[in-house]
């Protein structure tokens, strides 16, 4: 997966988004097995329209069932259908969240404390802050929580507090 290409497409269309999930943890803390990019997008019509343009430029595909898997439509309103979409793109798997469990309705707040970051080739993105990553994990059912990730995040937050 070319993660740079995914960020570049989102940036080109001026999508308001935050990198969340395993890739965010991997880039900022420790190597972790992850095979998709998770982004949380501001849930408003203008941003969803921009997101749809970015998805189309990435040759994204999605379907209500696997049998109906096809390129995403021109009209962005399909993104209103549910809270999360797992799509395929020409560059890899992308999960799009209109809201995030544990952080419901708090996009603006999380966006303000997000960490400005760049990839190795200089592509800019905003990353969900550690405290918010931890909140996400704590909101998951115990069987789905990533305990190692939580431990590392708690240690990082403690170090930041001690400084």
């Amino acid at each position, binding site marked *: *997966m*070319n993660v740079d290409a995914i960020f570049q497409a989102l940036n080109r269309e001026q999508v308001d988004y935050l990198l969340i999930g395993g*890739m965010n943890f991997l880039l900022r803390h*420790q190597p972790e097995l992850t095979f998709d990019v998770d982004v949380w997008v501001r849930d408003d019509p203008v941003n969803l329209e921009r997101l749809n343009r970015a998805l189309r430029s990435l040759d994204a595909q999605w379907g209500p069932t*696997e049998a109906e898997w096809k390129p995403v439509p021109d009209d962005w309103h399909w993104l209103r259908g549910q*809270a999360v979409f*797992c799509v*395929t793109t020409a560059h890899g798997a992308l999960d799009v969240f209109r809201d995030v469990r544990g952080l419901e309705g708090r996009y603006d707040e999380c966006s303000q404390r997000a960490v400005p970051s760049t990839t190795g080739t200089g592509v800019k993105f905003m990353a969900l802050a550690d405290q918010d990553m931890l909140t996400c994990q704590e909101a998951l059912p115990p069987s*789905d929580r990533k305990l190692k990730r939580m431990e590392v995040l708690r240690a990082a937050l403690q170090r930041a507090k001690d400084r």
Partner: protein
Amino acid sequence: MNWDELKREEERKRDAAYDPAQRWLHIQQTITWAEANLPTHLRRNRPRTRGPTGQTISIPTGQ
């Protein structure tokens, strides 16, 4: 369908729809991209350096 069920169903659907050859290629590319983008002290294919806390990070190296 609650939130967790929806997420699982979305992942299941995508896995079912993914072209296996393309999926495998994307996984390999992801590993390569991630390795190149890790902070230098965490990269596994080069000599370790000290991290921001001054501690050596313990990562299995197969050595």
